[in-house]
């Protein structure tokens, strides 16, 4: 993940997206810290929840991210199978309610992928999405779900590689954060979001099969 | 319509010239004319002396010693001592009680009264109380906003504004009427009524017009915001004279001695204040900054003494009351004139 950092930072980002990028950059350090703390229990993989397969919903704009996903496929790029893509006509179509619903229904992570800033097919849809993602991040923090479970990304239809990277980046991030405490069958006591508990993880991993039969 | 016309037009009843002592919200009328109150400050001004007033900030406690100490010194170096009313919205000993302490020390209090903390009922009640205790001067103010002080969560009042307060106090005195119109059957409070003016606020071109409004409302003396930008003050005074307002009201120019260039730089950030660069440079270059601060104050007073239409100075030595005697002496304003004031027969005698 650390190796992808410069590229992520090099992307033309501003304001909220910059904050997002900064958060991304902050991740490895934090991950390293929690990872180190977990080394004994997790078998030295550097990940807090190595066996945990997060369920991540990605709202992908038809004009960029969705096409980039296609391209990634054509290029035969490998990316985690944890991502469930939902095609939207524009990232600006994504409403806060939809983002929250995804979490309510048990998603461990959610991201919105829109066009590069300035390149929105509908001019400003991706800027709206950015603001909404920021607002919902705040709500997630307020209700104790951790705003880092949600992110906004910008890419173009030509960035198949970047699409795969984002998928990996998010999967790794959510793995670090652990299962969502609202996953069906989960209970608060068993799954604090920030204090990893080995037993709880196993339980989560065990239940994972039950809750996603697809 | 000029500002002077405005003052004329808006003056109640449009009654005659200045200084005629008639009832009604006529102009303050400097010089000559009979005194309308037993205020010593009024007497000094009407006799044509260059007046000196100063300021005493009441403590944030119930301890009166400081007020008494300052007043006992300042009474000989000034013709009136302002008692601030919870300035910068910080809770302090009330200006009414502080004014009474000043009387005890032999001084001549100017009670400041803001519209921030009291409605018209409380203000009139305090004025009756103050008059009964021998307070003869009042300065009507809007008051600093509560968010600047130590109770930002307080609810402000602003039932009336400073101009309306002036009007109200004049009507209580001259028409023997409460604001509601009811008669004050006897012992109406006889206060010499002042207001503030800020020559440095905006819109600049409206400042003089608003002064005319204050005079029309009944202001008899004006204490200005402290002056650092003398050029702008002169420009303002020119406009005041052009409208003939200096003939209708006594203008006391505000002076604040500062101890350092840091203080000046801070004052510069206060809304409605202007401090020229040269002044800051001069303070920066001074070896003894306190002495230089006093020099500047003295020089300014000397310049003000020569300025037509300025009837006195108001020295606001914030938390530096002890420096006032030196400034007054060096400005050639000591000793203060001795004036005879008639105690109105019906007024109760001040506390001993």
């Amino acid at each position, binding site marked *: 993940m650390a190796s992808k950092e410069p590229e992520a930072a090099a992307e033309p980002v501003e304001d909220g997206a910059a904050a997002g990028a900064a958060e991304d950059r902050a991740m490895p350090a934090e991950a390293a810290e929690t990872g180190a703390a977990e080394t004994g229990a997790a078998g030295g993989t550097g990940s807090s929840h190595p066996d945990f397969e997060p369920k991540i919903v990605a709202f992908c704009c038809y004009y960029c991210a969705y096409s980039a996903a296609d391209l990634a496929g054509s290029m035969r790029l490998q990316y985690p199978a944890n991502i469930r893509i939902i095609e939207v006509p524009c990232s600006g179509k994504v409403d806060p309610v939809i983002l929250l619903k995804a979490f309510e229904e048990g998603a461990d992570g959610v991201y919105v992928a829109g066009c590069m800033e300035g390149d929105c097919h509908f001019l400003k849809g991706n800027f709206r999405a950015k603001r909404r993602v920021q607002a919902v991040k705040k709500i997630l923090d307020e209700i104790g779900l951790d705003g880092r479970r949600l992110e906004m990304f910008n890419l173009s239809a030509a960035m198949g590689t970047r699409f795969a990277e984002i998928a990996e980046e998010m999967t790794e991030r959510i793995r670090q954060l652990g299962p969502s405490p609202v996953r069906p069958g989960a209970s608060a006591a068993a799954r604090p979001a920030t204090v990893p508990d080995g037993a709880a993880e196993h339980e989560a991993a065990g239940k994972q099969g039950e809750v996603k039969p697809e | 319509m000029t500002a002077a016309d405005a003052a004329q037009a808006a003056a109640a009843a449009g009654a005659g010239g200045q200084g005629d002592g008639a009832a009604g919200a006529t102009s303050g009328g400097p010089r000559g004319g009979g005194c309308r109150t037993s205020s010593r400050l009024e007497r000094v001004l009407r006799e044509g002396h260059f007046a000196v007033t100063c300021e005493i900030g009441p403590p944030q406690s119930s301890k009166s010693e400081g007020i008494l100490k300052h007043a006992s010194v300042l009474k000989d170096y000034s013709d009136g001592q302002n008692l601030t009313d919870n300035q910068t919205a910080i809770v302090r000993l009330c200006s009414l009680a502080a004014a009474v302490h000043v009387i005890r020390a032999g001084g001549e209090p100017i009670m400041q009264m803001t519209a921030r903390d009291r409605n018209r009922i409380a203000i009139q009640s305090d004025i009756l109380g103050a008059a009964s205790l021998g307070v003869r001067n009042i300065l009507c103010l809007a008051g600093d906003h509560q968010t600047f002080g130590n109770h930002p969560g307080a609810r402000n009042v*602003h*039932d009336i504004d400073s101009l*309306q307060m002036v009007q109200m106090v004049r009507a209580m005195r001259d028409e023997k009427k409460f604001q509601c119109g009811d008669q004050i059957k006897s012992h109406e409070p006889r206060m010499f009524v002042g207001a503030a003016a800020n020559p440095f606020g*905006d819109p600049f071109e409206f400042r003089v017009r608003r002064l005319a409004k204050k005079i029309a409302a009944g202001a008899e003396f004006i204490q200005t915001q402290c002056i650092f930008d003398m050029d702008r003050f002169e420009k303002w005074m020119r406009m005041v004279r052009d409208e003939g307002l200096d003939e209708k009201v006594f203008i006391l120019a505000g002076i604040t001695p500062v101890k350092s260039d840091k203080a000046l730089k801070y004052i510069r950030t206060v809304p409605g204040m202007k401090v020229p660069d040269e002044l800051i440079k001069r303070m920066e270059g001074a070896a003894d900054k306190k002495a230089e601060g006093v020099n500047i104050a003295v020089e300014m007073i000397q310049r003000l003494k020569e300025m037509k239409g300025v009837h006195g100075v108001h020295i606001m030595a914030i938390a530096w009351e002890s420096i006032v005697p030196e400034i007054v002496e060096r400005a050639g304003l000591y000793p203060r004139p001795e004036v005879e004031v008639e105690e109105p027969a019906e007024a109760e005698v001040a506390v001993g």
Partner: protein
Amino acid sequence: MIVAEPKPISEVAELVRDSNHLLIVGCGECVTVCQVGGEKEVEVLASALRIMWKKDGRKGTIDTQTIVRQCEPEYVAELAKKVKEADCVLSLGCGVGVQFIAEAYPDKWVVPGLNTSFGGGTVQAGVWEERCGFCGDCILHLTGGICPIIRCSKSILNGPCGGSQDGHCELDKDIPCAWQLIYDRLKGLGRLDLLDAVQPPKDWTASRDGGPRKFVKEEAMIE
């Protein structure tokens, strides 16, 4: 319109702590326009609270309904069925809405989800600003259509005070001085003469206090 702001979710969660069957009620008027209490915001809050409850392992239902106007009994009556099933009603209406619901359902616990702030309008998408203080005695004809009661931080009727500088209020550089605005506008309209009259103290009897103010229009009455 009435402009309101959402209470923090943590505060709302505390208000409905003892509820097992919560009904969140939106309003289709002002709070929909200022995007704090319409259908969408109701769903967002419901979803957020459901997540919170699930996270805490709490069982319970959260239902929603948004009515045309919470400030009119005939619409509030439409809530009857869902209110009956609920043990607590969280209103995302203004303070008026909360009270009308409480009055209509005397045996139900009704709590506010918003802080009702002011009478204002949309100055740009996503930004609302105060314009009216509901003083009950309009003087806008004297001040060029700019209200000093609510837009001047000291409600001065004979302004500006000495703190006005460079067009802004002494409180904050982001607050325009209402009296500078009034001066500029009247100057532009050639009506500075309006400012020469000393405005007398305002009669506040038409303003707040003295019990709720009431307005009756006889010809609009049916009974």
